[in-house]
């Protein structure tokens, strides 16, 4: 171990193990994570045998897929050892998602991997939007990767967050009881979904439903895009990878065109709305939980970016102790860069930001779980809290991803020229953080959605209404300012 680092550790007043136990959520959780990491990281099958710069984009994809299959098999084996009677549930999927995006997933796939969407969006959407029959048809097979590798296709080449603008359409044919899916223009091609390029063989496709010439809004359809055995694209399906990106190049983001692709009636997800055999459209309960899924992903994104920020901070802190740069007192040797206040001002606030985000993210997660529970109980409190939860998850996700990517870049700069090397890994960390700025709700769009809520609450405060807790300051502070009590 480097002598300077050793000295730092010996002189610290904080016991890092003590902190680690709290950070992990307890001694048991810390030990379990470490044991899981050992299981994978010490396995030679997961060692990096090829220098990353030796791999082309195509080779990187192939290596990632090979590793993903080994990883999932081993992970499944570990789950079975832990819990032989594993029951698939929403909570289990959430835990699985956290596992994939946490330290284990990052350690094995610095640039993420193509099957993440299968577990995060494909299965989650079937669970939240599929009927019991549809869940029986798809979920078990998806969980066991039995001929079903899924993804979720919403955004289009020419359309993003504005859902009403999506052009992909599904026309119902009562004679054959099938939907006919089409992407009628180039701008309507699905664009971006992870795993869509060359990996997934089934996609949940969001399309505008038309029955007998009448438009019934955006609905979700389960569409097989590649043959289960040969993996060849099916007739009418035009599918491929969209090409290298700034970061996250293991994700296999894809495009998808559909030309008169027919699917049976039972492949529209019908928990919230149904099309009967004769073409009658039946609107179910308002899709509040659908709203919840989007919020869930934003809450998770907050955790993802703080994880990246602290990864960057860890690299920069250790390097800044090892690296000696300039003297402070002319009669003494060069000091660690971290002894310079300017360097501390670059690094320590990022650590503070990551830790504080963690506190807020934990609170937001509990708030989300509480609202979801209330919605499931059909309580009014849940309905009332949804706009607040939505606004909070929007603006916290937007601002956190912006500041985290800015923070990672500052940490990169704090490592001087060496921080610019790919082997320093700031490129991967920055790539993932800055991607989060845009996906699952673009920065400015989310801010505008939040602002609409804030202005509404401000108007309510003028009418002396009771405001939700997170914005109660709008009323209390106004009273202080205008009462000149401040």
């Amino acid at each position: 171990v480097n002598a300077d680092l050793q000295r730092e550790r010996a002189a610290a007043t904080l016991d890092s193990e003590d902190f680690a136990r709290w950070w992990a959520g307890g001694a048991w959780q810390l030990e379990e994570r470490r044991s899981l990491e050992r299981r994978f990281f010490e396995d030679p099958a997961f060692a990096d045998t090829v220098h990353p710069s030796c791999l082309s984009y195509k080779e990187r994809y192939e290596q990632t897929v090979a590793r993903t299959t080994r990883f999932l098999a081993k992970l499944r084996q570990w789950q079975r050892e832990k819990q032989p009677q594993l029951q698939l549930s929403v909570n289990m999927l959430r835990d699985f998602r956290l596992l994939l995006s946490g330290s284990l997933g990052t350690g094995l796939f610095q640039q993420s991997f193509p099957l993440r969407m299968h577990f995060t969006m494909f299965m989650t959407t079937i669970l939240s939007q599929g009927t019991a029959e549809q869940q029986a048809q798809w979920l078990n097979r998806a969980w066991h990767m039995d001929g079903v590798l899924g993804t979720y296709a919403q955004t289009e080449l020419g359309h993003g967050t504005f859902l009403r603008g999506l052009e992909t359409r599904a026309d119902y044919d009562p004679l054959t009881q099938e939907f006919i899916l089409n992407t009628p223009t180039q701008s309507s091609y699905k664009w971006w979904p992870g795993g869509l390029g060359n990996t997934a063989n089934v996609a949940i496709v969001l399309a505008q439903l038309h029955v007998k010439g009448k438009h019934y809004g955006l609905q979700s359809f389960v569409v097989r895009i590649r043959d289960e055995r040969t993996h060849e694209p099916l007739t009418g399906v035009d599918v491929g990878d969209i090409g290298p990106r700034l970061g996250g190049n293991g994700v296999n983001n894809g495009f998808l065109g559909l030309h008169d692709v027919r699917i049976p009636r039972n492949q529209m997800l019908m928990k919230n709305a149904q099309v009967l055999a004769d073409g009658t459209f039946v609107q179910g309960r308002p899709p509040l939980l659908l709203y919840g899924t989007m919020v869930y992903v934003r809450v998770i994104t907050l955790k993802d970016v703080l994880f990246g920020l602290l990864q960057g901070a860890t690299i920069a802190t250790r390097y800044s102790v090892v690296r000696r740069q300039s003297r402070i007192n002319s009669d003494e040797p060069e000091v660690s860069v971290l002894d310079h206040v300017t360097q501390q001002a670059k690094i320590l606030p990022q650590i503070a930001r990551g830790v504080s985000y963690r506190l807020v993210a934990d609170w937001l997660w509990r708030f989300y779980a509480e609202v979801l529970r209330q919605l499931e109980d059909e309580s009014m409190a849940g309905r009332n809290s949804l706009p607040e939860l939505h606004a909070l998850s929007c603006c916290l996700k937007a601002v956190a991803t912006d500041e985290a990517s800015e923070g990672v870049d500052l940490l990169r700069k704090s490592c001087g020229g060496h921080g610019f090397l790919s082997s320093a890994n700031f490129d991967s960390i920055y790539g993932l953080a800055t991607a989060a700025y845009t996906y699952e709700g673009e920065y400015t769009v989310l801010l505008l959605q939040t602002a609409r809520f804030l202005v509404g609450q401000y108007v309510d405060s003028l009418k002396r209404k009771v405001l939700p807790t997170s914005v109660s300051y709008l009323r209390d502070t106004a009273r202080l300012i205008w009462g000149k009590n401040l």
Partner: protein
Amino acid sequence: AANCARALEISALEQVRQAWQTQKTHQSSKVSAEMASNLAGRQLTSAAIAHAHAFFTRNALQQLDALRQKGDLSPNVSLVLGQLVELFVIDTFLRQSGCVLRWNNGITGTQLRFVERRFEELLAKLRPNAVALVDGFDFHDRVLGSTLGCHDGRVYERLMEEARRNPVNQEPVNSSFHNHLLPMMRGKL
């Protein structure tokens, strides 16, 4: 820190009010509500950002209090966590000071300098525990995937190893010399 969080709330309130007023002004000049929102877009996004900062800082302080009240933290972790949250709040305040000052005419230069001094004090307090802190995040070297950030600090050794692993260093003379550089030199450009 609580005062800084309060100042951020005041700034957020004023920015929300400003956005609302801008929207109203545009609406009174007979544009549609949608166009009024478009024209007030800059104020609206600023208001949302200010709200996020106000919420992050207030909530972090509240969560810290809650953790301390639950008694889950050891005294040392509690102390360092307190320093981190305070640094976060003050750093956010200073980075937003332009907006904060715009909406809080009562804040003086002396008060601002006091906050800056506290910021520097916190850096000095946290400095001795910086490595222990990041060790506490418990990132495995594989997770960091970095020559600069490994737990053992063998930075220069790793940088050299990586350079030597570089595929273009695997042969003393690269074929491009014979294929391109040598013919060019022979051609005497």
